[in-house]
């Protein structure tokens, strides 16, 4: 059992933000994830981001599907309502809530299995609709909660040519989101707080569908994007200490690197992730260019991180629906129930 890593040094958790909340006000229940799980680092980043943008904790609405990643909304921002949906169907639930209460900030947290396998359809259509939300995929390339099977993103990052020879070609959620019309698209790494926190802040402030693909290593099943052997690896590895049922607590992996830099990150199973951070002067306003760049880099086996695309004045689902400013869940009987004479008129028309 691990606590969300608290920011270090003299009780910074007692600092107050513009609304007078301390970081503690954005914390949640004790995490039940494995010690060192990347997901906990992401929860910490979410807490930091909400604190820094001065979001009143109860104005947030948290959603998730099913999986270790999907458990995390219970571990941050307790004053916010949370909704653990069924597996792979969180996007539709979030969409419905957003339609009902447009005055809240919507955050969806999911896993690569929850989003790219069972949830692919709902993910794609929520993006198409431009639901005003921040959607974070905690991507470990594996099914953690069910003990280490591959997910549809498992091969991401491996050489495209080789990739073609792999059983199933991997789904790159970032490219998919771009193609489906997401208006804020970024990728990062759970261990790169310096990059992740600003990305989340931007996503929470963005109007429209903001998609963040966050690589997040699983310490229990040592899987990683690009790895194709990790499940066997777990068996072998665990057998060495003679039990299939041993999960050794690990320290979270940290990665701190500069714009433009290529960073090789070694995971718990020794595998390497090759992160390429976008240059400072990268222009995130060109959708097709972003797609092309990602395609090129993927061929070189690099995982591009950073803010890949943003349309600052995107419109969202409510614009399309033409709903009133008052959230639908706050409309009064008077606004909802038509007068009796309207009914008389309708009856007359049906005779």
């Amino acid at each position, binding site marked *: 059992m691990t606590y969300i890593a608290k920011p270090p040094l003299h009780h910074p958790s007692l600092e107050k933000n513009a609304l007078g909340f301390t970081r503690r006000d954005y914390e949640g229940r004790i995490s039940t994830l494995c010690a060192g799980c990347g997901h906990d680092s992401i929860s910490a980043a979410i807490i930091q981001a909400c604190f820094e943008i001065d979001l009143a904790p109860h104005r947030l609405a948290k959603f998730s599907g099913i999986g270790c990643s999907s458990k995390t909304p219970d571990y941050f921002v307790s004053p916010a*309502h949370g909704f653990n949906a*069924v597996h792979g169907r969180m996007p*539709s639930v979030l969409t*419905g809530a957003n339609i009902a209460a447009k005055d809240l900030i919507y955050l969806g947290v999911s896993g690569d299995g929850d989003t790219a396998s069972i949830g692919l359809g709902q993910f794609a259509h929520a993006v198409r609709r431009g639901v005003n939300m921040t959607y974070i995929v905690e991507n470990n390339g594996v099914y953690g909660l069910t003990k280490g099977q591959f997910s549809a993103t498992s091969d991401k990052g491996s050489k495209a040519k080789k990739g073609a020879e792999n059983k199933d070609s991997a789904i790159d959620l970032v490219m998919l989101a771009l193609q489906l019309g997401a208006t804020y698209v970024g990728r990062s790494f759970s261990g790169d707080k310096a990059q992740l926190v600003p990305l989340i802040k931007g996503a929470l402030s963005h109007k429209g569908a903001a998609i963040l693909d966050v690589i997040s290593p699983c310490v229990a099943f040592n899987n990683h994007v690009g790895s194709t052997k990790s499940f066997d690896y777990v068996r072998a590895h665990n057998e060495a200490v003679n039990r299939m049922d041993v999960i050794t607590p690990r320290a979270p992996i940290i990665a701190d690197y500069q714009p433009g830099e290529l960073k090789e990150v070694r995971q718990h199973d020794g595998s390497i992730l090759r992160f390429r951070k976008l240059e400072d002067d990268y222009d995130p306003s060109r959708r097709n260019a972003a797609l092309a760049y990602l395609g090129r880099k993927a061929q070189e086996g690099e995982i591009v991180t950073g803010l890949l695309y943003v349309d600052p004045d995107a419109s969202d689902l409510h614009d399309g*629906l033409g709903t009133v400013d008052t959230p639908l869940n706050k409309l009064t009987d008077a606004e909802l*129930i038509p007068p009796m004479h309207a009914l008389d008129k309708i009856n007359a028309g*049906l005779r």
Partner: protein
Amino acid sequence: MPKAIAAINDFVVKFANVNGSGSASANGLFAKAVLRMGVPVGARNIFPSNIQGLPTWYEVRVSEEGWLGRRGGVDLMVAMNPQTWEADVKGIEAGGYLLYDSSKPLPASKFRDDINLIGAPLTELIAAEFANPRERQLFKNICYIGVLVQMLGIETEVVKQLLNEEFKGRDKIIQPNLKAFELGRAYAEKEVAPIGLKLRRADKVGDRIFVEGNEAAGLGAVYGGATFCAWYPITPSTSLAEGFQKYCNLLRKDENGDNRFAIVQAEDEIASIGMVMGAGWAGSRAFTCTSGPGISLMNEFVGFSYYAEVPAVIFDVQRGGPSTGMPTRTQQSDLLLAAYASHGDTKHPMLFPANPTEAFEFAALSFDLADFFQTTIFVMLELDIGMQEWLTAPFKWDEKRALNRGKVLTAEQLEAGVAFGRYRDVDGDAVPYRTYPGTHPSKGSYFTRGSSHDKDARYSERGEDYTEGMERLLRKWETMKSHVPAPVRKNAKKRTRDGVIYFGSTEPAMDEALAALEQRGVGLDALRVRAFPFSDEVFQFIRDHEQVFVVEQNRDAQLKSLLVNEGGVHPARLVSVLHYDGTPITARFIVKSVSDKLKTGQAAVAPEKVK
């Protein structure tokens, strides 16, 4: 040649056409004309699952007495579809009438000698006056209406009036229609001898309206305060979403033309119900409408709604199952699925409207029930109600009626220190309190999940927490029994030991059947069930009778199963009458089945054999 059928204001006319040919609205015009004559009609489209070129029928029951269900049999057949000619001719009662297009001569073998033939050269008549082929195809329909109107003695003015109303001011449309109509009428006046079937002006329609159940339900959702519809197109439910849209545009726009509603066509049914869950959870009244296949797909979320206690309304416009089955035929065959949908121990309330008026009322009511009980309410419509125009009581709404949003704690209450535990039974009715998201800065937030939880919505794997919650859900089920619409009882004139239970679209045919049986000296007390869970009256009714017929439009006696399972009733006392070929049940079928079973004393056989 048997005696020609003679009847005034009491007969069945059936039209046989090809779909996509424009017959539907011409036939509808005929039904409306009869209504305008003050004579009630029950009218039903029987259409194929395709867009153009396949057989379609329209059956009109004319009944001054007011029997609006299907009677069975056809007195006058308007046979306009060569594909189905044989069966159509075969279907006519001996002594009945056949109206056909005599433009091309047909061999005698094509006819029957025990029916009365009425040929009218429709194609010729139209060809003489209209050039373009599309108009020719189209106006043939209104032309045979002209013939009928003349033959049956419907007032011409009535039809002209209807045409004028329908196309108010659009002369370019009205003129050719009137012309085609007059062509038929004039021909009949000259060439067709008067027949035994007559329409005579009466005053039996009253203030009733003529409307489809889906449209009524859509309107009911507007009055019920629904603000969100997430749906996926499927026959026969599509027109319910369209009805909601139509009436929202009419009644739910604010002064700037902005919408006090939202309608989303989802990518499928799982997304539809998922969106409804999210909206219901957030405090909007939300619904989806679908049919059997959609219910099958929604199972997982329905179970979630039951266990996490999230309000939702699902309109299931039932069609012929299983699987894709008969998409354009009617059935009452989703009861078992809806009642116990999803894995684990679950039960879900259902409402059974019997006509568009109740479709309107139950639609509105369903949102109060969903909000109060925080669970999925199924409104079990049927194609026969949803997609057919019924002559039904006008819509009413009590101006003083407020929406019952159930147990929702406000910021003020929380501020005032009201203790909040999401799944606590505070009032002893097993219905817990909830909060909308964002209600209060520090109090009232909670976590909704489909996994096991304790009274305060915290994740828990403790057996005690789990069973406590599951038992409360059973108690909540008990509470519902007195909140859902009570059954409607009609007693036989004389005391009787026999009863009959039925529901939904069976009502009109049952009314006629009960009268017919009574005439034959068979008296049945009748109970129309209107909701699940069943209230005690239902079981009292069963206890009050030695044997109770249960009339259903499905194969497996699904309502009977629910009665037995929920009420501990001895199955042997419930005798099933089942009609499930996809066509609406008829009065004649009920009369025959009940009479036969009474003769053979079916109800007496050993339990194992019953059903």
